């Protein structure tokens, strides 16, 4: 039973509320705001990198600085932006979607936020040290990251930043899982949970299973730097890669699943159909998550230290659950009545763009191909297509879709479409040429490339694209500011939604639902209710 809560007058700021609220909605909103802040910081790093790479020769920064830039760009985007925002969407929405008044373990959720933000600040404080921020890549690969090759406290701060942030994510994973498993409203069996909540369950299963390995690895690395004796001897160096990739492959699916779920919700709503193929989609998501823990060696094909054939097999097998998900997403549009709102456009963009990343993933899952493409810009293009052209578009779909629920007002749809189209052009200009130069022999993590390689023009195009992406993000910021200033009230259900979060006010009250819930007989309870009343 919930203890009594103090209801503050709306809009009045109080320090104790800001620092210590255990309302999952406020914790999630703060996490989303922090994630966007880190997105902007990491994006600025990328713009500096792209400016340097636009032409051969070192024009903007030193190589030393560039190495810190790409380390912090990758680390910020992965550890401090994409993962927390993916989990934060679940923190906000899973309790609502399952009809719960509260998240399970609310103080744990708050602790997760504290660890995440502390971790982010600690990681970035490396820039203030004498030796600069960590510059051993976002992987922190040993032996490059050991005390001989990366001396200085910047690296130690990076290690602690990563460990703390991920500890926070583990706590969030536990809260969300416990909510979905233990706090569903009467009538909501597991197989009546909405698609987004199922993708969050799969996400959090991966978090709880594999993220502890990362925390352990970071602690071991820190001890190795202090006392030595851990990553030593024959096979000492490869142990780091095993530990890290065992965590980091599920990690990249953690950064994908919530957005597939968000896009699935937007497809249902804006096609005015219940989600198609639920009974295939749910098991496929769980299979996907299970398989994700068996593929880590595909990051190690060129080490000569793992069974390439085993990992090629498990990695290629991912085509099956991924293909099922695409079938069901398209099936949801089939014979629908499609409305082209901004969130829907972002969802459609996600669908087709993530596919490029996924298919090129199948390509590099083949060792004969990876023997050439590993660590080249082809791989950089592959993961930017999945993470940016895919997940970030899915993120914008989710943000535009659920923004009215979080805030009570709508984002401007017209500006949203401008944002979408500029982002599409910028994304492809930036990342598609990388497939080409990578295949031609341009390796990654280089501040400069030979002038006679013939890569100058493509790199210049990529840089132009990067600035277009920045422009699109600026349009989004303008949209947020204008929409805040001159509010269009959204009401509880601006999109004609199907799931329980739309059956309460925008934003929801402190304990989520003021009145009785609609009867829950399927995974689209609000749709059922409206159909019944019609």
């Amino acid at each position, binding site marked *: 039973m919930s203890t009594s809560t103090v209801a503050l007058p709306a809009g009045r700021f109080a320090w104790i509320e800001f620092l210590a609220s255990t309302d999952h909605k406020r914790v999630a909103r703060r996490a989303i705001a922090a994630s966007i802040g880190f997105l902007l910081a990491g994006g600025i790093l990328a713009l500096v990198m792209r400016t340097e790479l636009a032409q051969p020769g070192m024009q903007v920064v030193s*190589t030393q600085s560039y190495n810190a830039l790409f380390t912090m760009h990758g680390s910020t985007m992965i550890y401090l932006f994409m993962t927390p925002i993916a989990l934060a969407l679940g923190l906000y929405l899973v309790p609502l979607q399952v009809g719960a008044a509260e998240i399970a373990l609310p103080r744990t959720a708050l602790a997760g936020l504290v660890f995440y933000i502390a971790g982010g600040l600690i990681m970035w404080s490396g820039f203030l040290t004498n030796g600069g921020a960590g510059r051993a*890549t976002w992987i922190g*690969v040993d*032996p*490059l990251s050991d005390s001989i*090759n990366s001396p200085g406290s910047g690296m130690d701060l990076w290690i602690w930043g990563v460990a703390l942030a991920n500890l926070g994510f583990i706590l969030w994973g536990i809260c969300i899982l416990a909510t979905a498993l233990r706090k569903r409203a009467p009538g909501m069996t597991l197989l009546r949970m909405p698609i987004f909540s199922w993708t969050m369950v799969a996400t959090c299963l991966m978090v709880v299973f594999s993220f502890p390995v990362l925390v352990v690895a970071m602690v071991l690395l820190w001890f190795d730097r202090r006392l030595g004796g851990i990553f030593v*001897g*024959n*096979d000492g*160096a*490869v142990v780091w890669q095993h530990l890290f990739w065992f965590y980091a492959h599920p990690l990249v699916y953690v950064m994908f699943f919530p957005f597939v779920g968000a896009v699935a919700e937007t497809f249902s709503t804006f*096609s*005015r*159909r*219940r989600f*198609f*193929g*639920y009974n*295939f989609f749910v098991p496929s998501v769980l299979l996907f998550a299970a398989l994700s823990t068996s593929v880590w060696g595909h990051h190690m094909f*060129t080490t*000569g*230290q*793992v*069974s*390439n*054939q085993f990992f*090629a097999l498990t990695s*290629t097998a991912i*085509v*099956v659950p991924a*293909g099922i998900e695409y*079938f069901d997403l*398209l099936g949801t*549009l*089939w*014979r*629908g*009545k*499609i409305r*082209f709102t901004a969130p829907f456009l972002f969802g459609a963009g996600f*669908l*087709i763009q993530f*596919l490029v990343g996924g*298919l090129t993933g*199948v*390509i590099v899952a*083949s*060792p*004969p*191909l990876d*023997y*050439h493409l*590993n*660590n*080249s810009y082809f791989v950089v293009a592959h993961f930017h297509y999945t993470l940016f052209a895919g997940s970030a578009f899915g993120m914008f779909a989710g943000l535009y879709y659920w923004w009215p629920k979080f805030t009570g007002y709508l984002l401007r749809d017209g500006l949203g479409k401008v944002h979408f189209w500029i982002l599409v052009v910028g994304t492809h200009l930036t990342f598609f040429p990388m497939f080409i130069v990578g295949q*031609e*022999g341009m*390796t*990654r993590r*280089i501040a400069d490339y030979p002038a006679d390689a013939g890569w100058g023009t493509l790199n210049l195009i990529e840089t132009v694209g990067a600035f277009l992406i920045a422009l699109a993000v600026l349009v989004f910021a303008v949209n947020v500011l204008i929409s805040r200033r001159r509010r269009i009230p959204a009401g509880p259900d601006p999109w004609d939604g199907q799931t329980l979060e739309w059956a309460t006010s925008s934003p929801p009250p402190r304990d989520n639902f003021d009145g009785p819930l609609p009867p829950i007989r399927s995974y689209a309870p609000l749709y059922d209710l409206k159909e019944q009343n019609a």
Partner: protein
Amino acid sequence: MVRTDEQFRGVWEVYLPIAAGAFLIVLLTLLFFLWRYRQRRDPARSPSDTVQGHVVEVSYVALLVATVCFLVFWTFLHENRIDGFTGGATGGERAEAAAAPAVSIDVVAARWTWRFEYRGTGVTQLPGAPDEPTELYVPADSTVHFAARSQDVLHDFWVPDVRFQRQVWPDHVERWNLVFDEGRHQGLCAWFCGLRHQTMRVVVIALPPGRFEDWLRRRQARGSRA
């Protein structure tokens, strides 16, 4: 003798069309659905109530599984050839014995240069000046054996022209075989190793076997500096 670039092309020229084809099918289906089922086309129509299509979906899953089986088969076929010749995990020593190389090169990677020692000849290749690539002379169209070790951090020996790379470790010797076409081939370090990673380069100069022997003899006579 297996040419790694030919094996790469054997896989690439099948994978790429399949990927492009799958992409086009999804793109065209999506665009068709967006056009055909848009609300404004027929505002009075009710959206469909069908939420599953078991027969179609099960058939589709069977097709996916068949595709995975084919891709894995195609990959293993070419990978077995490459690994059998180059020496995959733990296969390096067997590969050397089986391949009877024309020359064996001991590779030493250290931040941030490549050093190549021609085993049994006393000849060593180093870069001519800092930040210059090391020239690696090899006999063309012959098996070249590499035994590589790092003196510090991880490095990676990559020659894009032969579509092959292998990580180089500080804690053990990594072995592989390669065959080079006649000509010059750019090589580079493909694992981030710190400050001068981008200038840690190689130029592989593959000469016809007769001319390679001449070069080696002259180098032996002149002493072992580049």
